[in-house]
């Protein structure tokens, strides 16, 4: 069983739409949650970092964590064509290894 599951997409939405990106995980020791944005042939860029259940907002981005369901989401409001990229979730377990486990990424296309 894969530790972090993420639908690869592609997810295609019109400009201005609200986008919901999701990851599920199996390891209850996962305690630190990150979302990265990766443009083609570039490195992952950190968007959000959180370690508690609930919502964290930063501009147009909201990260949501539900530890009881082992489910995390990233919402993008008022999506723009420049948001077109691959979005990666990454999760770190507490105790033991602190190496982040990445999802395979969801490709997002925002068309004008």
């Amino acid at each position, binding site marked *: 069983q894969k530790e972090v599951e993420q639908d690869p997409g592609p997810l295609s939405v019109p400009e201005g739409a609200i986008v919901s990106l999701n990851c599920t995980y199996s390891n209850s020791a996962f305690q*630190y949650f990150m979302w990265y944005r990766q443009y083609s*042939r570039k*490195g992952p860029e*950190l968007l959000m970092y959180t370690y508690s259940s609930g919502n964290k907002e930063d501009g147009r981005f909201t990260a949501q964590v539900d530890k009881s369901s082992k489910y995390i989401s990233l919402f993008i409001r008022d999506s723009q064509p420049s948001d077109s990229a691959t979005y990666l979730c*990454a999760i*770190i377990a507490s105790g033991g290894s602190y*190496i*982040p486990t990445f999802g395979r*990424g969801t490709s997002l296309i925002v068309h004008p």
Partner: protein
Amino acid sequence: EPEVTQTPSHQVTQMGQEVILRCVPISNHLYFYWYRQILGQKVEFLVSFYNNEISEKSEIFDDQFSVERPDGSNFTLKIRSTKLEDSAMYFCASSGAQNSPLHFGNGTRLTVT
């Protein structure tokens, strides 16, 4: 804003040759990492480095791979005898603490012919 820098951006090498990929992590970070991403696939962990030694490595990081921090700023990944399947994007990352988020460079695209 401080960033992780990697050189070269693209490296082409022949099978069996040695390559060294270079990284300059963020200056006050203590933890350093190498990841690999084969085209169209997920980001895969290779190795982490802390206090001048390897702290963790994956199954991918076999005897053909080595890492070094030769001075106070550079962090290198060496592949001794490259294989075709080593062709990938190699990303360096650093973090300030163990459970802090990683900051990535823009990668080196390695092409083995």
